[in-house]
């Protein structure tokens, strides 16, 4: 079923070898056990399943959160996220424990959402790949600047969206259509091909790929 997914943590990257000796770069994600915190089916067609992940001590949560989780009959969890997709609410009951094998299979495509590693306030060279200036050949004090940012009287403005220095990283990033290379059910670990946003031990959301829409575009 499309749209459903699990919450997890990125463990790190590794390589897998197949029997022909071909290496595949993989990211390992510990995604489970998840608990169904809430299931919604509203009259206006909105359907959602809220998953919780990572059991913590009770005192780590505030009382409103704890109350909501107690009502659902799940252990206290640090992360709760909602998955919305039509028809999603039928398969799950509140309080249910969900493991990786309940949702994912080998070879499936998934989207992974995480928060990219923060680089702070970064200049144009790092943030946008600008070339900067020459290091030598008589260049003085013009090494990593961004250059011109516009024309003259016409248009008389800096175009909105002009690439400039600023905060880089530490934002939500979605990587679409990563292939699940292997699932390790005993440890609730998914290995997806390629890299995933965020640092080691960072929180990620793995969901079944939305894939291509009717026009061949991503939904």
């Amino acid at each position, binding site marked *: 079923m499309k749209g459903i997914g699990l919450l997890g943590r990125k*463990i790190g990257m590794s*390589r897998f070898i197949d029997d022909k000796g071909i290496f595949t770069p993989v990211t390992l994600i510990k995604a489970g056990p998840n608990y169904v915190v809430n299931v919604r089916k509203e009259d206006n067609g909105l359907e959602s399943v809220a998953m919780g992940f990572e059991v913590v001590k009770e005192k780590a949560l505030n009382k409103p959160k704890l109350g909501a989780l107690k009502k659902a009959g799940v252990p206290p969890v640090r992360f709760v996220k909602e998955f919305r997709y039509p028809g999603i609410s039928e398969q799950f009951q509140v309080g249910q424990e969900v493991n990786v094998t309940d949702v994912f299979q080998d070879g499936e495509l998934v989207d992974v959402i995480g928060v990219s590693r923060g680089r702070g306030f970064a200049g144009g060279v790092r943030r946008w790949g600008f070339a900067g200036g020459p290091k030598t050949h008589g260049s003085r004090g013009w090494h990593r600047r961004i250059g011109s940012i516009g024309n003259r009287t016409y248009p008389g403005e800096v175009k909105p969206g002009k690439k400039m220095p600023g905060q880089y990283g530490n934002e939500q990033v979605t990587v679409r259509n990563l292939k699940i290379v292997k699932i390790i059910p005993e440890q609730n670990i998914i290995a997806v091909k390629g890299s995933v946003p965020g640092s080691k031990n960072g929180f990620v959301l793995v969901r079944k790929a939305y894939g291509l829409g009717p026009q061949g575009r991503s939904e």
Partner: protein
Amino acid sequence: MDIVRRIEQTMMREDLPSVDVGDTVRVKWRFNEKDRSGEEKSRVQAFEGIIIAKKGTGISESILVRKISSGIGVEKSFPIHSPNLVGLEIVTKGKVRRAKLYYLRDKKHLVVKKRSRF
């Protein structure tokens, strides 16, 4: 031990002798290729030389083997946990004092001290 290492260990090979930099080894490597009719074929080729470097850890570990082939230096890198590595045998144990023997690239003859056995 962290989880990545533990998962890698389930896929790592344990049938190989432990080799060190400076050892002269004979590596048998399987090549998978297609012949003219498109049929899958594989053949095994041996490569004998001195290990001049070890790179990577865990499942990514590889050895760099150098030999002199008709007067021309040839280096090949082998990922030692690959299933294409059919055999790895030690011809002589070497005794070296560095981890990377890149200085051998400047020499016409590859000479490494042999380790005396006990």
